[in-house]
């Protein structure tokens, strides 16, 4: 895991550096040791939160990665919010008016949405909104306009997935006995769906959202690259290209950590909506 194919020293030292100096660097950085030794060493340090220094900038890797965290969060969370805002109403409506034209279109949309690779969608959006219409910036960060395209790109897949899932969960819930009970108590349809069914569907949806955050974070890597968003993803890609593995590892580690934290939050939320867990 430690030594990426392609020796990093080659990428940082000047091309006219003599062989001795390259070897000296390799030794200094520990690349000349067997891989398993490097790996073990890394693990020991990583557990202590020490990923070593970036090969390129010679700064500690972890702060460099943490620096980009807000940007990635901003992108991922806004995309998440966007996709929830679109997909939940869409899925609910689609389930409620099952087999209607609306439902069919929504289903077709979700099937299509899951088949579109996000980076390609990003390219298309750049082509239309930046290259053709010149409406939105094609990349970089800064104003809210910079956020729109990457957010939409990143949200697209989740919208498709969440809509689909909301729809099927909702259909499931609508078939449940307790919905019939509520109906039998004379609860109006809107209230039935908005209050009763939705809260029940929310439980599986929260789980899915938490699980999908991995996909979302992974997608953020690609989206950040496509739109030059200054987040962890872009840093990771650059570091991969540069073979700057302390950063790669710190980044991957941080993403895994975020994922774990988010899963924890999801568990808490889950308990919040699901009293069966809350009250034991």
């Amino acid at each position, binding site marked *: 895991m430690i030594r990426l194919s392609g020796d990093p020293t080659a990428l940082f030292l000047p091309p006219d550096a003599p062989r001795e100096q390259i070897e000296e660097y390799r030794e200094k950085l520990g690349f000349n040791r067997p891989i398993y030794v490097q790996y073990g060493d890394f693990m020991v340090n990583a557990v202590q939160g020490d990923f070593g220094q970036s090969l390129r900038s010679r700064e500690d890797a972890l702060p460099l990665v943490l620096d980009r965290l807000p940007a990635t969060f901003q992108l991922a969370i806004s995309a998440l919010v966007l996709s929830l805002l679109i997909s939940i109403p869409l899925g609910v409506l689609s389930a409620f008016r099952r087999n209607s034209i609306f439902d069919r279109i929504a289903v077709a949309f979700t099937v299509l949405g899951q088949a579109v*690779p996000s980076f390609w969608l990003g390219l298309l959006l750049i*082509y239309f909104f930046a290259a053709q219409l010149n409406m939105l910036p094609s990349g970089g960060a800064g104003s809210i306009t910079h956020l729109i395209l990457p957010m939409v790109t990143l949200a697209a897949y989740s919208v498709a997935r969440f809509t689909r899932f909301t729809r099927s969960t909702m259909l499931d819930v609508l078939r449940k006995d307790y919905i019939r009970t509520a109906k039998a108590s004379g609860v109006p349809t809107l209230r039935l769906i908005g209050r009763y069914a939705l809260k029940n569907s929310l439980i599986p949806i929260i789980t899915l959202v938490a699980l999908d955050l*991995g996909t979302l974070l992974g997608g953020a890597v690609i989206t950040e690259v496509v739109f030059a968003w200054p987040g962890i993803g872009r840093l990771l890609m650059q570091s991969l290209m540069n073979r700057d593995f302390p950063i790669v590892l710190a980044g991957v580690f941080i993403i895994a950590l975020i994922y774990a934290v988010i899963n924890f939050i999801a568990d808490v939320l889950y308990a919040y909506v699901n009293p069966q867990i809350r009250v034991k």
Partner: protein
Amino acid sequence: MTVNIPKVTHTTQSIKAKKQSAVVTFFSNLLRSWTGMVGFLIMILLLFISIFGQWIVPYDPLLADFGKKLLPPMTDGHLLGTDQLGRDIFSRIILGARVSVIIGLTTVLIAGTFGTIVGIISGYFRGWVDVILMRIVDVQLSFPFILLVLVINAIIGSGLRNIIISLAIGGWVIFARVIRSEVLALREKEFITACVATGVTRIGILFKHILPNLFTPIIILSSLQIGTYIIAEASVSFLGFGVQPPEPAWGNMLNEGKDYIFSSWWLITFPGIAIMITALGVNLFGDWLRDTLDPELKGE
């Protein structure tokens, strides 16, 4: 004393239910769902062009012709235009299909086999083996799939073989997870208990009763994962790892084409459409398979 034999009514249904061959059932089911049919046709088409593609391409997909670079679609006999080296995009897309198909199928074969074995071991034997294996799975699952593939690919290097290995390393856990939970669920099924009660051996239960019942989830999961792998490969190749040029893969075609997004829209359009149609076909077929093979999920 003789045993009373109750009459059994022969309902029309039971008389009608002659044994149909599996193939006939498959197609009669398929014909009933147009989405499944579309998915199936796309997959057949894809398979066809990936096998026979090299003989049906109008141009050599690798041959650069600088006189004809960046021709828009439908000019000079180039259906989808040419790229920055004057290579025929249509031919390259046709040949790219093979890369996608090879990657999709091979990866699913490797990841599926390995993951299934792990899942079975974990689910059937449980105990500390299960604990260890599932801990590994959990840890790996906390890394986003695409990121993992990317990093693995960066470590072991690019190229067709290595991208398959990377995808398989990233992908087996899903199989392990799903198959394990299937096995666990199956273990609790009453018919398995019935087997124990009958005195079937443990190995017998595993091979004769659990494995056949795993066939359906494996098939469903595989068909759904192929789409994931194809898109993941395209993403990784797009990012400059994965399959390297001049080998035409849709992902690296997009990578090469993205610099021309302002001048030559067709470079980024058609490979993307190819990926999308492929993923769509595979997903539709996978959904259909799931709906047909897994009656419990059939409701939706």
